[in-house]
């Protein structure tokens, strides 16, 4: 902290500098909490296998409309 015209530090009995936030936590009587990790990004929606659209999507053939599956092998 800066006061009285200079920078002041908290030091341990051995003379080493103690970070100011650790000192505050110590004074409060509980350990410092680690910074929360940023939330992991949600994975992209998994495409359905071959990506055959439903609800009359794609080329509107049988398997786009809840009908029977045709014989395409995945393209």
């Amino acid at each position: 902290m800066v006061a009285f015209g200079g920078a002041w530090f908290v030091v341990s009995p051995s003379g080493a500098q103690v970070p100011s936030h650790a000192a505050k936590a110590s004074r409060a009587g509980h350990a410092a909490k680690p910074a929360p990790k940023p939330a992991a990004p949600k994975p992209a929606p998994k495409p359905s296998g071959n990506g055959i659209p439903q609800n009359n999507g794609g080329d509107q053939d049988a398997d786009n409309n809840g009908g029977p599956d045709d014989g395409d092998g995945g393209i």
Partner: protein
Amino acid sequence: MAVTRTPTTTAVRTTATAVSEPMTRTPAKVSIVVGVVALAAVLIVGVTSGGGHSGHRPASAPFAWLQPAAPPAAWKVARIPSGATLAYPPGWRPVKTDAGTASVALLGSGGRYDGFLNATPKSGRETAANWSRFRPDHNRGEGNRNVRLLASAENLAFRSGRGSCVIDIYTTSKATFREIACLVSGPDSTAVVVAAAPNAGWEHQAATLERAVSSFVP
């Protein structure tokens, strides 16, 4: 490399159960019982070990209907660019399909699929060896639910070439279908034939669908 030309078939196995009764027999009777049980165990092991892809069995019940033959004279034939031909009976009509493929259907009221036939050239990673896994996986990839393999076989004889087939059931957003799907390799090309109908009405369409598959040329 030697190639086995004998069809192999796998079907859902059945299990047997037995009941027990209190052990009040004499030692002699117990010995007889033990012997009978041991013999039964040997027989059971023999039966079950022969139920899978043994490689030396004729086509069994699930595909016994597959008798390669020309279609009935009254049937029409759809031909796809790769050369495969798909025969279908009167009353069925072409429906919208992917480029390079042929699809015909027997449509009920409201466009309901009462029967469906499709021929498609090989277009993915499907092989004769992986077909029994590939096809159900493909159906799951279509967004279908409750995909269940009922039977599969390899090295089945077709009019031109040999094929791997599955019989499976799956549920779409509108109905539960049963299908016969075969990957057939001929001298010049490999193609898939699919024959499907609502599971609830399978018995009504089975003979037609099986005849169409039996007449398929890849």
